[in-house]
């Protein structure tokens, strides 16, 4: 962090004083400009705010601690970010067609979003049929995963699974790999939704086991992947949910680090070596429209993580110190009004993430405030990334805003703000305790309300919503893609037939082993989830068993 220089040390710069007087004379006092995290923003930054004296300590070079300028020496000039578009719709065959299309357009990795019924731990024959496949692919067992990834070399393609506890999608992927003769050591990717704490605090999308069980399954999952799937990132610590729910950028990063510390503490308590599990920790953030704030926050985040991993865990491997993150442009900033304006918003958000040094990026489709994204919208989102990279040449220079008086000063201020919120959680006994007590949820709710009040009062402009409104032609809006009901009926019928054709003995045996593991702390629950997937158990059977044995996690009502 940078402190303003001692005025006695600096020769007073008459020209700066003159500017200040002139500015004050014309504008008067306007000290109330603040960014979303509450940091006061000055009209001009000069060497009085940041002068490079602490360059070596605070900024340094890419690939060297504290990594302010990037976690790799070559950053985007060497290897640009992974273009990872979240997709999922309809049946496995629908998903596969869309995936192959996106790969042909330039997507370089797989991402899979299952249907909300899957998120919530149910099979397709247990739920309202109207909701199946409307937001993600309906995938309930290993053969569905095999069909989703037909034509994709799973040993050579990074796969991000939007896969909450108990990680059945990864289990189905591992079972698919085994069937195809691909060794697990070749499987790479990320369990994108492994962060049960963020689900508990902010995004109640996901199957929930009561907190103690969720805590244990995550540690089992990290342990299993470290041993058997070494290229897999089992821990994605998620700030995105909390920011979408209303946390400010600084709060979202603070609560995310607090979560990472909680999970790392839990791994250490199990006797795991920090230099084994920390290199496989990744982060996932939202990128709001607050351009400089987001850039500064990501730079500050790298600095904080590099310090925490060394000071708190004594990590010695530089891979443990690197703050690797995926980011998604913020859907909350998008508007239903004049939806094409969202293309501009997503572009600015994506630029903030890129200049902030991300490793992987999802750009939202412009029509997400209208419906689940259309294929047309998703294509523009991918093109936006291609334009920023190859037409605008954003990747030519590493950390191009480094050394800017404003960005460096703001990076320090955001760091201080993040550390302040982290202390609140620490004082409450850590993230597990703070979330159990509802403290984090309350903070997030208050920040959401504050932002909404600013929009309602007009203090925060939202083009097309509270300013610059126009009469719109509804017919120009894209129509919502919906799964074909006939195909979905066939999918359900095939699922029922598949279940009936299995050997009931093998399925029962695998479920019993899973139930025993849930009650035996020395066993590994995730290892039994994988075994159950291989034995042909369905997602709903696996989740149902764990729900019975470990208890269901309800949502607290906090308004």
């Amino acid at each position, binding site marked *: 962090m940078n402190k303003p220089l001692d005025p006695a040390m600096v020769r007073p710069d008459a020209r700066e004083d003159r500017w200040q007087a002139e500015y004050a004379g014309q504008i008067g006092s306007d000290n109330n400009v603040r960014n979303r995290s509450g940091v006061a923003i000055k009209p001009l930054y000069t060497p009085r705010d940041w002068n490079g004296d602490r360059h070596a300590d605070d900024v340094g070079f890419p690939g060297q601690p504290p990594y302010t300028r990037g976690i790799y020496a070559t950053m985007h000039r060497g290897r640009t970010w992974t273009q990872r578009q979240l997709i999922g719709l309809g049946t496995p065959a629908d998903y596969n067609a869309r995936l192959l299309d996106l790969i042909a357009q330039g997507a370089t990795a797989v991402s899979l979003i299952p249907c*909300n019924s899957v998120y919530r731990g149910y099979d397709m024959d247990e739920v309202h049929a109207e909701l199946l496949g409307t937001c993600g692919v309906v995938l309930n067992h290993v053969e569905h995963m095999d069909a989703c990834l037909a034509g994709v070399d799973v040993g050579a393609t990074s796969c991000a699974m939007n896969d909450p506890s108990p990680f059945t999608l990864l289990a189905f992927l591992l079972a698919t790999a085994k069937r195809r003769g691909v060794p697990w050591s070749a499987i790479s990717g990320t369990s994108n939704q492994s962060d049960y704490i963020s689900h508990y605090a902010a995004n109640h*999308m996901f199957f929930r086991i009561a907190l103690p069980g969720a805590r244990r399954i995550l540690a089992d999952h990290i342990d299993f992947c470290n041993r058997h799937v070494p290229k897999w990132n089992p821990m994605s610590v998620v700030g995105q949910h909390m920011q979408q729910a209303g946390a400010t950028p600084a709060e979202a990063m603070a609560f995310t680090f607090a979560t990472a510390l909680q999970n790392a503490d839990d791994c250490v308590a199990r006797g795991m070596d920090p230099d084994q599990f920390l290199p496989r920790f990744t982060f996932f953030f939202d990128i709001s429209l607050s351009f400089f704030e987001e850039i500064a926050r990501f730079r500050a985040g790298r600095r904080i993580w590099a310090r925490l991993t060394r000071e708190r865990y004594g990590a010695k491997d530089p891979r443990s110190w690197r703050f690797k993150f995926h980011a998604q442009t913020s859907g909350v900033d998008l508007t239903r009004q004049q939806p094409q304006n969202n293309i501009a918003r997503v572009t600015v958000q994506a630029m903030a993430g890129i200049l902030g040094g991300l490793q992987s990026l999802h750009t939202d489709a412009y029509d997400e405030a*209208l*419906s689940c994204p259309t294929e047309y919208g998703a294509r523009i989102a991918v093109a936006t990334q291609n334009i920023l990279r190859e037409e605008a040449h954003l990747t030519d220079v590493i950390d191009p805003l480094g050394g800017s008086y404003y960005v460096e000063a703001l990076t320090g201020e955001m760091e201080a703000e993040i550390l302040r919120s982290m202390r609140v959680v620490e004082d409450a006994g850590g993230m597990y305790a703070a979330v159990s007590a509802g403290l984090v949820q309350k903070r997030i709710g208050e920040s*959401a309300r504050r932002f909404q009040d600013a929009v309602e009062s007009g203090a925060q402009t939202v083009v097309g919503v509270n300013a610059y409104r126009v009469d719109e032609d509804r017919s120009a809006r894209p129509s919502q893609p919906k799964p074909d009901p006939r195909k979905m009926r066939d999918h359900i019928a095939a699922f029922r037939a598949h279940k009936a054709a299995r050997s009931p003995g093998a399925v029962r045996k695998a479920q019993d082993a899973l139930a025993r593991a849930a009650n035996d702390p020395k066993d590994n629950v995730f290892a039994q989830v994988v075994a159950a997937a291989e034995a042909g158990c369905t997602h709903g059977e696996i989740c149902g068993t764990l729900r019975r044995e470990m208890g269901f996690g309800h949502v607290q009502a906090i308004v």
Partner: protein
Amino acid sequence: MDIRPKVLVTKIGFDGHDRGSRIVAAYLRDAGMEVIYTPPWQEIPVVVKLATEEDVDVIGISSLATDHLIVPKLMAALRAAGLADVAVIVGGIVPDEDEEALLAAGVAKVFHPGGALEDIATFIRDITPALRAKRITDGRYLA
């Protein structure tokens, strides 16, 4: 005499994005209404039971991820339980073609992203007196 509307704010189906439902619930409460708030994931029979026992004027359903597609089922369940005189409003991400289907199923109003919170409060205040009068003429409290 000022009527204080009683509103149930809830979510049915799978989705758990509750920023909207929490903000709306807090706003209506602060605007002087009696608000019953539930966390996400409520089953339709539970919503009907709550609406009956709490004698609410309005049910607000928040839907961000297609859960509005089962709102017609809720409307049928309310009618079957004799609660046709409870107004149902839906807020969230609802495509135009689905909005028409919801209105046809008896939903009183659909609120979209970017709408002002005050519009929701005004709408509820405007419809509540007639809803109460209808509940009395329907003889709902006689049985």
